[in-house]
């Protein structure tokens, strides 16, 4: 009886696969099969076994992602151009930008730290933003750019390595450490950086992987 039931289920899955293989999703997190259903914007379809967010469409996901990615890039330019923090003690003042800080570090083996900061805080977040702009720009004009698959996979792979929000918490800790030793005042770049962290978080939330893959794959959903 039990076997009969399993056989029946397998048969049903096979029929679904034969009629439209793209109508099925195997949960990337646990391999459980699902039938892809239409999900309303703002709703999330989760895996019934591991609760991985399979489909989480947003209203105007393309426009929103494009706008937020471009905004984050502009804010980053501003962050790099303006002073980040100013330190003063006993008449000596030192005003420095993030780029200046990286430049100060770039000597000898400290270079490794400079590279780490440049990569995790500036390079990778901007590379991800650029990759998303490339993919989304093309999709908005109803055709996936030639390299869209590689570029979107790259954008997703970079995600855990973009650490702007970790850096801002680090700034807080550093300020406490210096507080007793020198007077600190915030530059424009500090506040712009805070806004940028917010914009990047909104951007990450506006990307629905399933929707974008479906579009790149030439499906309408």
């Amino acid at each position: 009886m039990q076997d009969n039931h399993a056989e029946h289920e397998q048969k049903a899955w096979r029929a679904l696969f034969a009629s439209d293989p793209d109508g099925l999703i195997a949960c990337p997190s646990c391999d459980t099969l699902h039938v892809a259903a239409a999900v309303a914007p703002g709703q999330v379809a989760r895996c019934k076994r591991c609760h991985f967010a399979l489909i989480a469409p947003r209203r105007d996901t393309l426009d929103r992602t494009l706008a937020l990615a471009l905004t984050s890039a502009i804010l980053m330019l501003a962050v790099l151009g303006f002073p980040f923090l100013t330190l003063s003690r006993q008449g000596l003042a030192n005003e420095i930008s993030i780029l200046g800080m990286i430049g100060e570090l770039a000597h000898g083996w400290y270079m490794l730290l400079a590279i780490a900061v440049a990569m995790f805080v500036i390079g990778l977040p901007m590379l991800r933003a650029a990759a998303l702009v490339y993919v989304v720009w093309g999709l908005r004009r109803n055709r996936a750019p030639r390299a869209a698959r590689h570029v979107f996979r790259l954008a997703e792979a970079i995600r855990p390595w973009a650490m702007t929000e970790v850096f801002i918490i680090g700034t807080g800790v550093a300020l406490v450490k210096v507080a007793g030793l020198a007077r600190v005042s915030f530059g424009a770049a500090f506040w712009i950086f805070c806004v940028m962290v917010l914009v990047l978080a909104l951007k990450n939330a506006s990307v629905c992987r399933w929707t974008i893959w479906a579009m790149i794959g030439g499906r309408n959903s």
Partner: protein
Amino acid sequence: MRARDMGWIGCHNCGAVHDKGSRSCRTCGARLHGRLPNSLQKLWAWLVTGVFFLIPANLYPLISNEVFGHEEGHTILEGIVVFAESGDYLVAGVIFLASFVIPAFKVLVIAILALSIQFHWQLDRRVRHLLYEFVEFIGRWSMIDVFVVALLTGLVHLGAILAFLPGVGAICFALSVICTMLSAQALDSRLIWDGVENE
């Protein structure tokens, strides 16, 4: 029903379902694997490297400060004690969590996940999955201390009065964080739900 039970391959990247024998995903172009090959070997290799870097990271000074030419170095734990002694309990707590508790806990959790898969331990899968998600989420936050060192060194230059110099511990710690992040990423989470390791 899993894709594997049907003899199909689910793309680990985008979830598209494929016939057995397919090589690359028609939707996202990723190489298809029933389960990622050598997932656990890669996990162990990165994890052991990460633990290896954690030792000098805790023994050598993370940062030293030079106040009026007098240089003084602090390891991670000494730094936490300094914060606590000066009354900044919140910051001491944040650093204690990010630089000490989380790295140690993370290594432990990754090891438990790998062992439970390898030896088919009867751990609740939901619990294992929660642990996995926790490790994936928390990994990057350990970088806080590295950024603090970079900020202090790069920002604070007040002539002879005050300067910070990074210690060897900082770079070892950063490498350890990177290795353990790669270790967690090497794990094919589908193995957690199989309870069977193969391919």
